[in-house]
């Protein structure tokens, strides 16, 4: 656990920023999360250790982008490479956040948060240098699609932070791509703040190479009448953990979440979601899928919190899981904490295998077992992939996944 040793000795950064100092102080007291807590107990300990085994390198290699831009209209940014964006157009503007705005926002977030639940963010802020924080203020309703890349360098630990403020009435398609290089660990913390009446269609695609690890934390604040849709896909990581925290601050907001994690070999990929309703008339529609093959392990834990103030909440959380091997493992736990009495909430979980009668039906029409399984898996994945914005790329991506699986 090289990183933790460096934190303890305060050798991590030569000239730490204010945020880094705050987080270092917090972590020095308690450098590791409590592995007995509900939030961390299913994390594979040796894999988690391997996540922390790399050393933090300030010098990073240039990011190799996995595909070309589908259109010139897309705004493509790489965290750590081109943070100086400043666009002021007729129908929209994208401006870099001031350093003080970034510091204030992160400080506000970490000061009130539970150390165990936000351990991933604390670690991220300890290690994320100024150059690796991208903060943007976005406004307008004719904003071109945004593509934001975050990547680790081979044989190292890298931390990247993204903060996006969406101004009132803005409307945007955003895709975030996290790339894990071979034998590396990537810590990505993302903060999205949706002002009133904004519409954000967000895709998160994370994929790695051999022995890559990922800690991906997503914190979303939704204000009145905002609508946030998330489509996510995580695959090919030795160890990956996706933490989603969404807070409907005043109620009257809409959240849609569709996510899938695909595990193979000996991988472990976990998704933890916390949906907090802090006002009336909130809406959530969530589906999380896992597809586990070989000796891999997929985890989903979802929590919906509906306090008394959140009357008339309408929330649904489903966890659907497919086991492709008898040695693979899936843990799933969707849960509700409801205090309000006038709400409509449902949750459920299923774990199944490829349907044999469906396979036989397709085979009886001449499709090979491999073709029939591929069609079945493709339809299983497609429901989620189709919710990720930017159409052409998502199909390239689906092809890539299917070829590799």
């Amino acid at each position, binding site marked *: 656990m090289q990183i933790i040793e460096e934190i303890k000795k305060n050798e991590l950064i030569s000239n730490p920023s204010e945020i880094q100092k705050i987080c270092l102080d917090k972590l020095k007291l308690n450098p590791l999360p409590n592995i007995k807590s509900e939030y961390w107990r299913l994390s594979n300990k040796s894999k988690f250790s391997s996540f922390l085994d790399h050393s933090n390198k300030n010098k990073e290699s240039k990011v190799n982008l996995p595909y070309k831009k589908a259109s010139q209209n897309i705004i493509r940014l790489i965290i750590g490479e081109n943070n100086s964006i400043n666009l002021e157009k007729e129908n929209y503007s994208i401006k870099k956040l001031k350093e003080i705005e970034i510091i204030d926002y992160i400080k506000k977030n970490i000061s009130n948060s539970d150390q165990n639940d936000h351990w991933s963010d604390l670690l991220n802020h300890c290690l994320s240098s100024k150059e690796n924080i991208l903060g943007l203020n976005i406004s307008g309703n004719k904003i071109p699609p945004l593509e934001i890349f975050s990547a680790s360098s081979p044989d190292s630990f890298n931390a990247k932070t993204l903060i996006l403020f969406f101004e009132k009435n803005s409307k945007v398609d955003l895709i975030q791509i996290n790339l894990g290089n071979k034998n590396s660990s990537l810590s990505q913390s993302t903060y999205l703040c949706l002002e009133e009446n904004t519409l954000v269609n967000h895709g998160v695609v994370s994929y790695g190479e051999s022995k890559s690890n990922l800690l991906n934390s997503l914190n979303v604040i939704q204000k009145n009448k905002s609508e946030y849709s998330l489509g996510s896909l995580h695959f090919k990581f030795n160890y990956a953990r996706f933490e989603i925290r969404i807070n409907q601050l005043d109620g009257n907001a809409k959240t849609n979440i569709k996510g899938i994690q695909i595990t193979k070999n000996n991988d472990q990929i976990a998704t933890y979601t916390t949906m907090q309703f802090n006002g009336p008339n909130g809406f959530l529609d969530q589906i999380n899928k896992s597809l586990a093959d070989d000796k891999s392990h997929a985890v989903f834990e979802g929590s919906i919190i509906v306090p008394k103030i959140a009357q008339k909440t309408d929330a649904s959380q489903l966890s659907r899981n497919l086991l492709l091997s008898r040695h693979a493992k899936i843990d799933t736990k969707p849960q509700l904490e409801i205090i309000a009495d006038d709400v409509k909430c449902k949750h459920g979980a299923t774990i199944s295998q490829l349907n044999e009668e469906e396979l036989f039906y397709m085979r009886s029409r001449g499709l090979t077992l491999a*073709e029939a399984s591929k069609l079945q898996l493709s339809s299983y994945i497609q*429901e989620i992939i189709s919710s990720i914005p930017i159409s052409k790329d998502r199909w390239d991506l689906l092809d890539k996944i299917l070829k590799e699986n």
Partner: protein
Amino acid sequence: MQSKTKELDPILEVNNLFASIENLPILKGVTISVNPGEIHAIMGRNGCGKSTLSKIIAGHPSYNITKGEIKFTGNDIHSLEPEERAQSGIFLGFQYPIEIPGVSNLEFLRVATNARRKFLNKEELDTFDFEDLVKEKLDLVKMDSAFLSRSINQGFSGGEKKRNEILQMALLEPKIAILDETDSGLDIDALRIVASGIKKISNEQTGIILITHYQRLLDEIQPDYVHVMADGQIIKTGESDLALELEKYGYEWTDNFIKEQ
């Protein structure tokens, strides 16, 4: 009983077939032979083994053949996978066609058709050529092209599912089609459409086995032979008037026959 087309080699021969599922014997010595151009009907009570026979011929992996053989165009197909049987020309029309959410009906039909075409050394069809072909076949079963853009059988009515089965049969041009209770759940109009589709598809080279409980399908498609199944065996074979007898007297006599045995 003499074959109508005795000069031809049989397409399908099932010889003294015994089969079980999870060690439970279902078929107890079935023998049947189908020549090109022949239509056979198999009738019998629920649970007598009709559907099992059809699934075993199509290669369902859950069943275990314990004795006997199945020959298709003269070759034992015991070791063939279901897809190899389908590609070589065996078609099973399902009693309960399976719904497969998320898998496009059009894409499924195209992949299936191309698998058969590849076996026949015919050129595989791209999306555009396949759409032309499928639209032509849709007319046979009076189906709307909107069905193609939906998931396989998802949200289809009982009649639509059965018509989709016959559409698949039309596209795959099998040598033998085993249609398992294709008439169940159909109203009179739908039954006529399905029966007319089957008649148009079948020809002198095709063999057909109709599995049914009722005479009404056989009024539309006259069989050359009728077989009565009971307790995993074919206990009687006759011509089309045997079905009329069954309609008139029911299956009680088959119980007595089994008891006597």
